[in-house]
């Protein structure tokens, strides 16, 4: 029982972070049918922003989250303006290659410009302090992660349900040309989607970096892979799906890690995770949620 609760807390934290990233990927996919493989690089941008600020002007974790989130929003918006806007009308494969190119470019720039090695920066002093609830010990950081993620998801739900921007994004995701005919400006709604995806990635980056305060050129790739899988599990383009997919993936990883026997098998955790996902897609190729408007007309 103790183990179960511990695992649930762990998987909610991890899955929540996946969900934030998967939402961004799903959002961009919705408005422009691009699986943005450069999305994970936003975490890297956030990490180096923190590293530079800590090592130059000094810094404090009181305001560092704001700087990290701002850098992610800015980077996300810049990729749209500099790269994706010019290939928007090209075929989807061109867009996909553009996002791969951005990912590799980002790796190379950090390697050449900073260092191929990981650069550490100060950690959050209280992150791994624990609270004791009966037999269960929960890290402060776990609670912060779950609370912040939940808050971000609620705010996101409200934004997409209540604001004109949110309604426009949902409409554009369903039928982009119809939205243009209503007066939605294509550039603006796509730029807005990139900004919001950057914001969510920024929140994820803060949660990740508070746990592991270091920057490495290729650190975004593992998160990207998990986020894309989560988005696909949920049904690409579905907002609820991205969240459900993220949490499902987090649970799968945490529980397998916990219940696989010590030793060789636990090293194969990822292999088991991908095996389960492969079987899931054989049974349900469309993902958890049906997305009826997957093709842009």
């Amino acid at each position, binding site marked *: 029982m103790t183990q179960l609760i511990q695992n649930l807390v762990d998987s909610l934290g991890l899955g929540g972070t996946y969900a934030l990233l998967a939402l961004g990927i799903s959002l961009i996919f919705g408005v422009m049918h691009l699986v943005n493989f450069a999305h994970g690089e936003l975490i890297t941008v956030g990490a180096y922003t923190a590293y530079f600020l800590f090592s130059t002007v000094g810094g404090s974790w009181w305001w560092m989250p704001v700087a990290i989130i701002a850098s992610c929003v800015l980077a996300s918006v810049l990729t749209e303006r500099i790269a994706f806007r010019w290939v928007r009308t090209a075929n989807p494969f061109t867009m996909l290659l553009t996002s791969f190119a951005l990912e590799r470019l980002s790796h190379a720039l950090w390697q050449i410009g900073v260092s191929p090695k990981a650069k550490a920066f100060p950690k959050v002093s209280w992150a791994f302090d624990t609270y004791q609830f009966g037999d269960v010990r929960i890290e402060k950081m776990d609670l912060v992660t779950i609370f912040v993620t939940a808050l971000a998801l609620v705010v996101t739900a409200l934004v997409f349900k209540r604001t*004109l921007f949110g309604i426009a994004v949902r*409409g554009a995701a369903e039928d982009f040309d119809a939205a243009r005919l209503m007066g*939605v*400006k*294509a550039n603006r709604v796509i730029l807005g989607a990139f900004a919001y995806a950057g914001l969510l990635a920024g929140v994820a980056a803060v949660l990740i970096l508070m746990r592991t305060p270091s920057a490495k050129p290729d650190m975004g790739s593992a998160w990207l892979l998990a986020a894309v899988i989560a988005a696909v599990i949920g049904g690409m383009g579905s907002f609820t799906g991205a969240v459900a997919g993220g949490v499902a993936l987090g649970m799968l990883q945490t529980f397998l890690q916990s219940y696989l026997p010590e030793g060789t098998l636990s090293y194969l955790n990822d292999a088991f995770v991908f095996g389960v996902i492969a079987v899931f897609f054989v049974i349900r190729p469309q993902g958890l949620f049906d997305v009826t408007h997957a093709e842009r007309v």
Partner: protein
Amino acid sequence: MLELADVTTRYGAVTALDAVSIHVDEGELVALVGPNGAGKTTLLNTVAGLLTPATGTISFSGERINGTEPATLVRRGLALVPEHRRIFKDLTVEENLKLAGVTVARRLRRERVDEVGSLFAVLRAKWNTNAGFLSGGEAQQLAVARALMCNPKLLLLDEPTLGLAPTLVDAIFELLVTLRSQGRTVLVVEQNAHRALEIADRGYVLRSGRLVAEGLGSDLAGDPQLFEAFLGGGL
């Protein structure tokens, strides 16, 4: 109000619209008819900015609008009710109208949504229903209501009666006449060629991308040879 001069539109190597010249004057209801594949939808989409003409000039209120973003045209008062309606099925009726109110100043938007909503009683009844659950007739009314949100001077409608039951077809034709009587200019593409021409001030017949006939709506509607030759016979 709207003038097309020798407008040609191509999809790659295929010419869908071949040097077509038409005009729609203020306050007119004009019908554009022709068999399937004649280029009617291409013409409307070219005017609305979804397609850019290869050659020729389109002008709206005296300004050249070739290749102008649809979002800009809507703000100038040109709205298209697209083929197959293309309402947002995952949004509620109210959200569909709100989204279409993106061109309306923030403080007037709420009011305009109510105003347009009140013109269509059936929509009022399904205000918070996802538009995907609407019947064909309701969906068509929503599509028209959505286009009215920007208070257009010129309204383009693409096959508004497609797939509707006969009584609803009547209602849509009545709606077109009402729109004209409210002072709006209307260009409608219709498969119900005869009925559309009957209520229209003027009509154009398009076939294989070319203009083959034009005239007063009533004259065209009363021309059996025209129907025999271009519109698949039968009145």
